[in-house]
């Protein structure tokens, strides 16, 4: 506990010092944009140094010996621990918590939206709640799977002892709590009402909570970049002997591709937000028309990150689902190489489609057709990934387990998400559908139906590996059905109201939309209640569940060949990979040579 207390204290001291110094130097109020900025920066440094960057790392820069934290047991999770498995669990618990919090905010919004007219949220509060829900959920989708399973599984799956840069990895995680604190304390400064997209000119002129949004999101971007850098380097340099690129488990490929994307383009989100911060705090005029600026510039910079970002969210989800499907269908992964090509096709195309978010923004019309065509072309590599999933399921010996049930829900949802995306990519229909609930429904089908389903399915599938215990299978299956049905009941009606013109991001709507909205609100509460079952099952099973077999699925990839949970530094012996990971049912096929301690000494 001590490092955490030290981090909180130093973070607060840093914040107060930064804000106070700013006021002392230039006057003004301690809650204006400049003071908050310097306060946040110093507070962030204080927090990091307190949690362990100083002890475990920065001391070396001054020629002092590093003092890594020695905590054991559950206290490891509250310290600057460099074990990738600890960091993976930290990410998993953090982002499941954020997911539940963001979901709770959605329930408050659905309560207000249950009837037309104003019930208990004024329009301004509604917009702020909607913005908070948005950014929390975006963060969960971006970092949930990559942070949790990327960290936990990538070194295990490639036969490495840890990530390439363990301390950078620990720092990536410990950058997250200040992000959450910054976002959740934004209401103290008037919160932010510009959605998660933070479009100027609103985001330049609204209340001071927007500055905390900007600083928190830039910090989150830094965490994503460092995390991506770590995964790319780990996969490129730390594979076990025999683990050639053609033998990489499909989740590793997915995490690698998403990390390359995240590493590069996240800077554009940082850049666009830095420019807004300069407009607010340094008097520049990038996005303000009166000084010659142009708000469209923001949209270009922002979507150059934020469209590929949905592929940062969904590529790791593809990896998780293909792992689950191939292990539980007991068949070789269908068209492995084609699927990998599909991943890279998505990475390549994803940076060339951003302006499809801007068809109605007033940008040059000559850009409409090329961006429409490129956007629709991205369905080809995505289709290749689906080909792999369906081909693997086809005539497989399906094992009826919760993760596979969720995989079927995922296939259904993501298909709907993909097909409805065509109408938004198409200029003619998008001009009608943009800024309606059709967009909301489509986006939730891809990101909740795609990414969050995979996060949940993965949390069941690797639960026995992470905890050493088994979750309750029947409750798991009940939840899988509950989640899939509940999710569809909420969002199918929203397509209908969207097509008929109900605007998103507005607290009220005409009487005409009352029926479907009431239905969606009731369904949302049913869906929300289901998560009690999810959290209850996993929390109870983690403490009291029956001990799990090290390899309950009979899976071949490396992480399942170790005890549960795997020991520190993972492998007692350097594993030797001799074959493809997914050759189920092929006589004589082997993925890893037997790891027997032939006179080897313990690590």
């Amino acid at each position, binding site marked *: 506990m001590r490092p955490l207390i030290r981090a909180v204290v130093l973070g607060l001291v840093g914040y107060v010092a930064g804000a106070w110094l700013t006021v002392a130097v230039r006057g003004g109020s301690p809650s204006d944009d400049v003071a908050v900025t310097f306060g946040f920066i110093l507070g962030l440094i204080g927090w990091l140094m307190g949690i362990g960057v100083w002890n475990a790392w920065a001391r070396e820069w001054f020629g002092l010996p590093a003092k890594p934290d020695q905590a054991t047991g559950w206290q490891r999770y509250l310290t600057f621990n460099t074990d990738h498995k600890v960091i993976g669990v930290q990410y998993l618990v953090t982002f499941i918590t954020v997911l539940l919090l963001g979901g709770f905010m959605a329930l408050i919004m659905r309560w207000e939206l249950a009837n037309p007219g104003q019930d208990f949220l004024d329009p301004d509060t509604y917009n702020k709640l909607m913005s908070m829900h948005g950014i929390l959920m975006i963060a969960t989708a971006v970092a949930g799977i990559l942070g949790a399973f990327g960290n936990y599984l990538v070194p295990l799956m490639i036969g490495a002892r840890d990530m390439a840069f363990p301390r950078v990895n620990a720092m990536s995680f410990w950058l997250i709590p200040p992000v959450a604190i910054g976002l959740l304390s934004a209401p103290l400064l008037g919160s932010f009402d510009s959605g998660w997209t933070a479009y100027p000119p609103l985001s330049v002129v609204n209340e001071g909570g927007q500055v905390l949004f900007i600083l928190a999101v830039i910090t989150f971007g830094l965490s994503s970049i460092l995390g991506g850098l770590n995964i790319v380097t780990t996969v490129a*340099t730390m594979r076990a002997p025999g683990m050639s690129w053609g033998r990489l488990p499909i989740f590793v490929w997915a995490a690698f591709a998403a990390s390359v994307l995240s590493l590069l383009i996240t*800077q*554009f989100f940082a850049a*666009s937000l830095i420019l807004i911060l300069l407009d607010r705090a340094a008097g520049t*005029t990038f996005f303000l028309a009166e000084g010659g*600026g142009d708000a469209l510039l923001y949209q270009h910079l922002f979507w150059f990150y934020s469209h590929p970002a949905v592929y940062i969210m969904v590529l790791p989800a593809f990896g998780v689902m293909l792992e689950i499907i191939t292990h539980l269908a007991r068949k070789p992964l269908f068209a492995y190489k084609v699927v990998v090509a599909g991943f890279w096709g998505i990475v390549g195309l994803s940076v060339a489609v951003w302006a499809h978010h801007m068809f109605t923004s007033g940008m040059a019309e000559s850009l409409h057709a090329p961006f429409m065509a490129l956007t629709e072309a991205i369905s080809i590599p995505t289709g290749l990934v689906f080909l792999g999933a369906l081909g693997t399921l086809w005539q497989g010996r399906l094992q009826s387990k919760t993760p596979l049930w969720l995989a079927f829900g995922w296939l259904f949802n993501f298909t709907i998400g993909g097909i409805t995306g065509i109408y938004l990519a198409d200029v003619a229909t998008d001009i009608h559908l943009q800024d309606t609930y059709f967009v909301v429904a489509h986006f939730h089908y891809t990101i909740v139906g795609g990414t969050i389903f995979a996060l949940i399915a993965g949390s069941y599938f690797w639960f026995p590996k992470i905890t050493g215990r088994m979750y309750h299978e029947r409750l798991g299956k009940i939840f899988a059905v509950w989640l899939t049905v509940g999710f569809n009941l909420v969002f199918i009606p929203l397509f209908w109201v969207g097509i008929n013109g109900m605007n998103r991001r507005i607290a009220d709507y005409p009487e005409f939309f009352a029926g479907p909205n009431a239905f969606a609100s009731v369904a949302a509460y049913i869906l929300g209640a289901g998560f009690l079952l999810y959290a209850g099952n996993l929390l109870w099973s983690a403490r009291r569940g029956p001990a799990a077999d090290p390899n309950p699925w009979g899976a071949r990839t490396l992480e399942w060949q170790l005890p549960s949970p795997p020991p520190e530094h993972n492998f007692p012996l*350097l594993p030797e990979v001799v074959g493809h990971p997914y050759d189920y049912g092929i006589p004589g096929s082997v993925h890893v040579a037997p790891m027997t301690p*032939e006179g080897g000494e*313990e690590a």
Partner: protein
Amino acid sequence: MALSAGAAHERAEALSRPRANRLGLWLFFASETFLFAAFISARFVSSGTYKPEELNQPLALFLTVVLLGSSISAYLAETSIAHGNRQGLIRYLSITILLGLAFLVGVGFEFKEAIEYFPPETIYGSNFLALIGLHGFHVFTGVVALAVVLRLGTKGHFEPDDYWGVEGVVKYWHFVDLAWVVIFPTLYLF
């Protein structure tokens, strides 16, 4: 064949460590390139190729020479320690830091002059402030990192077969110089 655990892992670690460090650093540069690219593209999108007459081109050219010169001294610092020449390391790192500081002072002077003519409230002034600020911040962090390495060097750290700290910081310094080589024409020549 199963190698003994500790020995095999240590051998693998020793082989992959320099590769991992270098790759990680280059990936960081790739990422930073995107950050600079965003700011540079913002300049062309919002101001086109317009530039004010009042820009002090001779001063900026001189600063470019100073910064490029500092890359040479940084390179000499790295080769010095690679050959076990600690005195050379300290001398050339000190020169690099001084040139870096001279650059920062010069840019600060130019900036103070320039915003008289095109303040941040104009669109070119916004771009000028953002790009100079972004690059200046990188130079500043580079100077700090060089100072950390210099202090470690004077205390006897780094050997001819173990000078990753020097190598990493010097490579970062080259990257920051290269960024200026792109930013200089972006702001002053177009």
